[in-house]
């Protein structure tokens, strides 16, 4: 008898507790009360960064492009990035469109770092056009410098095998899966070995800028290919 009584009592208490919790949850859901202190919804990000490039004359002076070429470049740039700067995501997207078969995002990341000379996380039109000026209109020395800068991921003046391997893997990633002959796991590594054998004169495991430039200038293939893209614009 008593147990039956306690059973009903217990069930009643349980019922009331459940009811109370349910009502609190309902109120919370309706937004009338909030629990945590920092439950402020995310404030809207500051409006998109807008950047206006320096004047045409200044850019003309700083780069080796003509006025018309700068106009064309800017129009294309602004079309794709109306806000005037490219962040890394957009950069990767744009670059990946040229390599639909593989994954170009890693290499795009390195490229981005190479273009973003002031390392502020975005590439403005000036950075863009400076980089292009070197690549398309610069001397061989400047181009090789730029390439070295690309490979040197941590910008310490030395290219280590690991850095080179990263770059190599990124390049091979762009190829994608369907290649002939089949891409094997150790292909990038082998390629890095070949590279280091050629470049690393004193066999200390790193390539310095002088070794790099020296070696490239002595290589006919590389010299010829440096002039390949001069008529691009």
């Amino acid at each position, binding site marked *: 008898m008593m147990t*039956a009584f306690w059973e009903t009592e217990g069930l009643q208490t349980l*019922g009331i507790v459940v009811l109370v919790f349910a009502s609190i949850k309902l109120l919370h859901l309706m937004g009338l009360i909030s629990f945590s202190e920092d439950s402020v919804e995310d404030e809207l990000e500051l409006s998109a960064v807008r950047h206006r490039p320096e004047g045409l004359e200044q850019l003309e002076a700083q780069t080796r492009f003509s006025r018309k070429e700068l106009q064309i470049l800017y129009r294309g740039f602004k*079309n*794709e990035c109306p806000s005037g700067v490219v962040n890394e995501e957009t950069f990767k997207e744009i670059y990946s*469109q040229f390599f639909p078969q593989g994954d170009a995002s890693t290499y795009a990341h390195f490229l981005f770092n190479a273009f973003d000379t002031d390392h502020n996380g975005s590439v403005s039109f000036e950075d863009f056009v400076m980089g292009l000026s070197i690549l398309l209109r610069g001397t061989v020395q400047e181009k090789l410098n730029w390439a070295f800068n690309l490979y040197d991921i941590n910008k310490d003046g030395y290219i280590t095998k690991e850095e080179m391997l990263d770059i190599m893997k990124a*390049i091979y990633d762009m190829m994608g899966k369907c290649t002939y002959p089949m891409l094997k796991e150790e292909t990038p590594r082998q390629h890095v070995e*070949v*590279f280091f054998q050629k470049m690393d004169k004193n066999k200390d495991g790193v390539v310095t800028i002088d070794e790099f430039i020296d070696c490239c200038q002595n290589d006919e293939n590389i010299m010829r290919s440096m002039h*390949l893209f001069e*008529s691009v614009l």
Partner: protein
Amino acid sequence: MAAGVAAWLPFARAAAIGWMPVASTPMPIPPQDRRKPQDGLIILNVSGTRFQTWRNTLERYPDTLLGSTERDFFFHEETNEYFFDRDPDIFRHILNFYRTGKLHYPRQECISAYDEELAFFGIIPEIIGDCCYEEYKDRRRENAERLQDDEDMDMSNDVTPVNLTFREYLWRAFENPHSSTLALVFYYVTGFFIAISVMANVVETVPCGTLPNRSKEISCGERYALAFFCLDTACVMIFTVEYLLRLIAAPSRYKFMKSVMSVIDVVAIMPYYIGLVMTDNDQLSGAFVTLRVFRVFRIFKFSRHSAGLRILGYTLKSCASELGFLLFSLTMAIIIFATVMFYAEKGSPASKFTSIPAAFWYTIVTMTTLGYGDMVPKTIVGKVFGSICSLSGVLVIALPVPVIVSNFSRIYHQSQRAEKRRAQRKTRLARIRAAKIRGTNAYMRYKQNGLLIDTLKEASKEAGRALIGKAANPPFESQHHHLLHCLEKTTNHEFVDEQTFQANCMEISAVHKSGSRSSSLSSSPHGLSSCCSRRHRKKNSFSLPSTNNQELSTIQIRERPVVNSRSSLNAKLDETMPLKCEEAYITPSMVSLSAPVMISSDGDGSTTTTAYSQSIVRVSAL
């Protein structure tokens, strides 16, 4: 690749310098830029609205009109721009496609107009961007459905009864009660009998007073058993006959037997026959009584008579998933609450909640807010949970119902639209036909007018009217009429208007019945039907149906004195014979004329070509 990104190709190529030191093999030679195209502005004048863009922008898509040399056809030297006589509003979107690489579909434009513009400018619609693609596809589908509907309507209503076999005729009568009066009568009779049968079933069970030697009330069915039996028999006979007729007339018997309506028909009449068979067996009479329940399915036969009922059925079928969800969620809730109520009320003495299944009844009654009151919770907890149960019941049931309602509404409106289109179709066709007749009448007038213009004699009042009309004829019209005239001359046939032609058809049938002539006439039943039904066909062949040329021509001449007078007055057409109205005169001349013609037209039944230099047989074409 989006066009906008194409602007970054120089950058990507420049960045390729980063690969050079790593490469072990020499690079391929870059393609030579044949010429540096001048990046000039192009002016596109679309119906007065000037659009300007860079030449390079347009040349991004070389397989479209604007990107290829095809645009040179539209170059306007005087103003040094490209002129297109098209809709500027839609052109805006097309030009945006060149600029951004994304094609958008504006919602307020008509889908066919948009499609036409796309086709004109050589852009395939499949590249419409994701943002607008769904909308575009939906509109396109609706349009296609509308066209398909129209076509179906055309096809189904155009087959004239003459060509149908008896079976097809019967089937049409059944499916479309408005096709003939017999069908309509049948439709109403069956409807009446369905109603009678259902009412008889209902009234049968009403208590009807007591027999003198019994104290219990008996139902009407038992009291007037014979009358009800006769009524039932009559109804079932009608239904059986109808079912058998439908079965005979159905184009695909197997498909018909599988259809829902036929199953309902069978289920409606089966109990009667089964009852006939087993009247004397007491054991099975219990089952027989159960079978009588199925007689109520006769009420479903009304769905042939009511479109609304069919729509309801179709809606329920199409909302099967929502209904399933409703059922599932209800079942879940019922089980949960029944369990809770059972355990809550377990302690209370003399509680009706004896088991969980017993609690199901309470839960269902509460959740659907019926609240019979035969089972109520007595404990506080039970009451609390009972109230939660009724609140949640309201919510759970109210949620899927609007989905079903909106589905029903959509289907209903669709069928309304289809009905409206059907109703408007008649007026629409009449409009089209009137326009065509105006055209042919204009041509008739032109002919009379054009040939009379040489003479000042006004032989008929039509000429007078036509003369006045001639001055007002735009050059387009006169060129069109000249073209039709040339066609007449080529084929040695003439255009006539519809009344004349129909009169000819009747004449032909009259002549055929009188049965004179030769073998060529024997082919005229086909010719008759093809002749009269030709106006239903869509093809515009001018070949004569394989009837006798002579017959037609004689009749033709008799009907159109105007033609004769005109032709006699026309000095230019020296190849015409002077034809007069009298039949007797005509027939021999026709015979002599047509002899050479018949040779050439033997075999294919068309009277064109070779003889026309000698004579013209004026026969009705069209």
